[in-house]
């Protein structure tokens, strides 16, 4: 018990010494008032210069008075400056041992409500400290302990790894690629569905194009090997489908009378349609390309997507299956069910 008490008192003394060797608080406050005195004497100098010569009978008298006043002011400035220098030597340096190294200096920023950097930094540090023991062992095994920021980075990576493994359980993947926490282990075999010869892609697309007589598919390759399809559906829409090998990456649906080419003659794959109905159909098409997924058989996916897209040939002629009307808020039924291809208004689908 006494050994414990001695140890704790020794620790308390060490802490007090650390505080005392640092800043001399009295000299500090005296130095602040010396600064104020210096500021006022300098202001007096400039004020006297601004006011100029006082009104006296003779020119000589005026000049003499002005010069003596100026000299007095300069001497008071000199006195105050010397006093400040003397006090600054007494103030001493603050303690060097910062627990947070340079980031501790952020606490000196007085504007707390506009830039609460220090408190946010402390919170982030506390959060990153909540590590399971396994990762602490992992860090200790490293040859050198990195500086505070690097440690923070490693902890973040670990948390990110945990999060990605949790998300991967939800099978949001459309391709058969292996990606995960063990990023260092490269996959030895490249998955075959992502790297397909362009000729194969062309064949699949032309076969699908021949399936439907009222839908024509043109294939372009404006940027390297990724195919860009221009699907013309009757006289209703022109859809642009951007592919990545045989996976559908993006799609934009525009009206039949809208321009698909940009000013330099290339296919315009970015600008939205001018009409609200086709902007809505574009959103639904994006949902569809995320819905139809079969990582090992991408050609079946493309065929299902095209079948779904073809149901829009009667976009303006079909009433909604639920409410029976053509228009809801000015829009025709733009939603097509993924299984039955029935038409619904966006607000009428369950």
């Amino acid at each position: 018990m006494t050994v414990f008490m001695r140890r704790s008192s020794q620790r308390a003394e060490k802490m007090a010494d650390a505080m005392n060797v640092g800043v001399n608080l009295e000299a500090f406050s005296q130095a602040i008032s010396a600064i104020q005195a210096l500021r006022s004497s300098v202001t007096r100098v400039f004020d006297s210069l601004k006011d100029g010569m006082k009104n006296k009978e003779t020119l000589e008298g005026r000049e003499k008075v002005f010069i003596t006043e100026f000299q007095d002011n300069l001497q008071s400035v000199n006195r105050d400056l010397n006093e400040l220098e003397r006090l600054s030597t007494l103030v001493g340096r603050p303690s060097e041992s910062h627990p947070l190294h340079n980031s501790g200096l952020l606490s000196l920023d007085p504007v707390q409500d506009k830039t609460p950097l220090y408190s946010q930094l402390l919170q982030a540090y506390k959060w990153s400290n909540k590590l399971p023991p396994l990762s602490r062992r992992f860090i200790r095994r490293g040859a050198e302990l990195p500086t505070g920021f690097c440690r923070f980075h490693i902890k973040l990576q670990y948390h990110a790894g945990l999060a990605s493994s949790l998300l991967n359980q939800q099978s949001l993947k459309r391709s058969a690629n292996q990606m995960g926490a063990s990023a260092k282990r490269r996959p030895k075999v490249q998955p075959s569905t992502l790297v397909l010869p362009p000729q194969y892609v062309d064949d699949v697309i032309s076969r699908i194009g021949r399936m439907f007589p009222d839908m024509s598919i043109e294939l372009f390759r404006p940027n390297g090997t990724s195919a860009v399809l221009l699907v013309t559906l009757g006289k209703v829409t022109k859809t642009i489908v951007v592919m990545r090998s045989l996976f559908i990456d993006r799609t934009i649906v525009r009206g039949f009378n809208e321009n698909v080419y940009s000013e330099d003659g290339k296919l315009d794959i970015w600008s939205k349609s001018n009409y609200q109905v086709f902007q809505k159909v574009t959103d639904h098409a994006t949902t569809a390309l995320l819905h139809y997924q079969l990582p090992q058989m991408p050609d079946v996916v493309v065929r299902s997507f095209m079948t779904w897209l073809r149901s829009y040939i009667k976009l303006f002629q079909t009433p909604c299956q639920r409410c029976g009307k053509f228009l809801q808020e000015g829009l025709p039924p733009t939603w097509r069910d993924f299984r039955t291809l029935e038409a619904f208004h966006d607000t009428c689908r369950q």
Partner: protein
Amino acid sequence: MGVTCVCQVPLAEGKSVQQTIDILHKKLEQLGAVKQGNFTVDCETYHATGNASGQPTKLLYVMHNSETPLSCLALFEGGPCLTADGNFDVLMIKLKSHFQNAKGHKVESRGSRYRYCDFLIKVGAVTMSSSARGISVELEYCPCVVPGDCWNLMKEFMQSFLGPSIPELPSVFATKPEGLYAPADCVDTMTQYLELFSKVRKQQVLPGTTR
């Protein structure tokens, strides 16, 4: 430019032209349409002189539309039509000897232009020599170019603000239900306006509407 339908709206019970137009504006604004400016469509009539006697005089109509301000359309009723630029009017003045302007027969429709979702609605007062003769409503459904596809859709929309007085399918559509509407030069729209103006010309002057 999409499928356009032009029709004439009868006056409301006991109301004048301006009052009926105000009622229509209010209904459109209640639906959620936004006013986007004004529009004008006018039509001048020219008699073709120099015909052999016994033949009826051919009438040439020169029409202008504020949607295409730099063009004008010249057409014979049921016959060929020509799209030209604004200088065509000056040319007609030069052709005074062949075509005489029937000045009293100029008909025009002037009013406000509304936009609702993908619809463009123009409600105008039809006037002939500064006397109001009726109300014209032009409805355009911009995304569609095939009249046969969207006629039911347009009828449903017209019902929502015109009430029971919905027109029947315009004759222009009947001839080509599956063909493409002719958007570039508004020929089909102007043909419909011409039919409406001809009907209005033959009508009696409405009581209490002369200015």
